[in-house]
């Protein structure tokens, strides 16, 4: 018998299937569990969860703790954290992983504080060290930090979608389902009344072939308009770095990086971005990386294939007009 507890993934359901990030985490948890010689297990809360349970088992979970109840249809912080803490205290997992989804980002710290344990945020890598402790990698200041939680258990981490690969499904895989009763709690002090979907205006960044990402170097709202213009010319997805969100030029949903979206376009064009790790780790395996930055010594140029050392405010309008001209000339040929 291993002296370690199981590796857990707190899974989520959306539209009758498990969230992709939950399956990606099950894939990672499976690896970690095999190295530790323990079970890979998942906790799934919600309502009408049959499809998601099958997904989790097919993706590598040995056991699913299942609380399937109409009261859990919407994420309810008090009830969800109560159930997870109760299960964790009983089964003593070694590791708990959660997706950096909106639910995970609220629920994980609530659970970690109640379990009096550590929680690493938005990891871009997970591995076991020589002592079988979970090393949690986080980009910071142009490098990587390894976070460990030496004494407290479980070791907890959140991870964004796209950091780990989606594991192959094996529909024949069998696993155990453990039904979890919903505890009776008094009137909750916080209650989700409804979850409202808003129409998505632009295409999903995750699916874009070309992404133009603007940063602080855009300089102003006017400079940002030039970034937008280039995007329109290229038919590219418009993304940004943290400073552009802080400046109010771009919405948070379009932020790429450790605490934003993880993308893998064919072509990435960073304009006025400095190459900060927290942003750059969000671009996974782009075939062609291009950067425009007025500082020839900018760290961004160490991380791309093509560099243009120009002020993007001057360069982008020129580039956009050249692209227009190129398109016109092509049209003339056919």
């Amino acid at each position, binding site marked *: 018998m291993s002296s370690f507890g199981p590796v857990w993934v707190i899974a989520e359901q959306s539209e009758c299937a498990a969230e992709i990030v939950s399956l990606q985490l099950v894939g990672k948890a499976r690896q970690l569990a095999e190295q530790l010689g323990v079970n890979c297990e998942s906790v799934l809360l919600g309502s009408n969860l049959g499809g998601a349970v099958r997904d989790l088992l097919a993706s590598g979970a040995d056991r699913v703790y299942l609380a399937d109840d109409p009261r859990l249809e919407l994420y309810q912080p008090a009830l969800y954290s109560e159930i997870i803490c109760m299960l964790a205290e009983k089964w003593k997992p070694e590791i708990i992983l959660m997706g950096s989804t909106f639910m995970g980002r609220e629920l994980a710290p609530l659970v970690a504080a109640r379990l009096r344990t550590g929680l690493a945020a938005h990891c871009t890598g997970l591995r076991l060290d020589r002592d079988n402790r979970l090393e949690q990698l986080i980009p910071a200041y142009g490098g990587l930090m390894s976070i460990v939680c030496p004494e407290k258990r479980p070791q907890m981490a959140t991870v964004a979608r796209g950091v780990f690969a989606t594991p192959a499904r094996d529909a024949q895989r069998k696993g155990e389902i453990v039904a979890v009763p919903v505890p009776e709690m008094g009137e909750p002090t916080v209650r989700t*009344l409804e979850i409202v979907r808003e129409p998505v205006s632009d295409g999903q960044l995750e699916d874009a072939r070309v992404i133009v990402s603007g940063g602080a170097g855009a300089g102003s709202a006017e400079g940002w308009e030039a970034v937008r213009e280039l995007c329109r010319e290229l038919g590219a997805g418009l993304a940004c770095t943290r400073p552009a969100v802080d400046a109010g030029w771009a919405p948070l949903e379009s932020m790429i990086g450790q605490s934003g979206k993880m993308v893998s376009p064919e072509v990435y064009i960073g304009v006025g971005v400095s190459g900060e790790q927290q942003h750059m780790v969000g671009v996974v395996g782009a075939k062609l990386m291009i950067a425009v930055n007025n500082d020839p010594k900018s760290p961004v140029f160490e991380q791309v294939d093509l560099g243009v050392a120009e002020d993007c405010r001057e*360069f982008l309008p020129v580039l956009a007009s050249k692209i227009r001209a190129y398109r016109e000339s092509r049209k003339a040929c056919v």
Partner: protein
Amino acid sequence: MNVIVCVKAVPDPKEICKIRIDPATKTLLRCDVPLVINPLDKNALEAALLLKEGRGASVTVISMGPPPAETIVKECMALGADRGILLSDRAFGGADAFATAYTLAGAIVKAGEYDLILCGMASSDGATEWVGPQIATFLGIPAVTMVRKFESQEGAAWRVLADWQNGYRRVEVRLPALLTITRDLNRPRALSFSGILKSRKKTIEQWGREFLDLPSEALGAKGSPTIVSEMSTVRNRRDVKMLRGTIEEKADQLVGLLAESGVL
């Protein structure tokens, strides 16, 4: 109504790329990057100041940080906060999110009665989003993270809208509660000259471990479940080809390369 706002002094996000890891010592080279109020904490403060103006709420700002963080507490006073508290003590040093939340929760209890605690949704210096919800857990009060709108602020149960995948979540929360704030909630005001003048008379309370009367093993690095075990300077290196020539020539070359890669 008593509102507490937790603020963090962070290295100016505009200059953050100057901070690097020293490859030799694996420690941070801070290069004198100035400290500023964490941008999202300004939205939290703005929400509190609107409650002050709208219903006479009293606004207390609490920050934990090294002595130079006093400047950002002063700035919050100049923006309109009534009371400023700086938690500064060597015993608090090296705290992770858990120990930070524990210390702030201890200070909030010490600061007196409260109805609402507001925090920015995250800090810009790349830490976590955990401090807000963990303060709430230590205080035993409800938390709602990523609040983008107040729908109803009447009575003991407020209705708020919080960010969610492809939309939002409508939440009812009973006060006292902790809310973490996104930049969509409001537009933070700018400093005014009269505000600066008025704040000159206000003093900032400096609280240390003894005053908080918290066990030192629960604070700072000692009270932190997580540690940074290593810092490395690896990055995704690629061999860059810098385009040469005039701005026009560079644009021409880039158009050619984009066409070659099939995206035009």
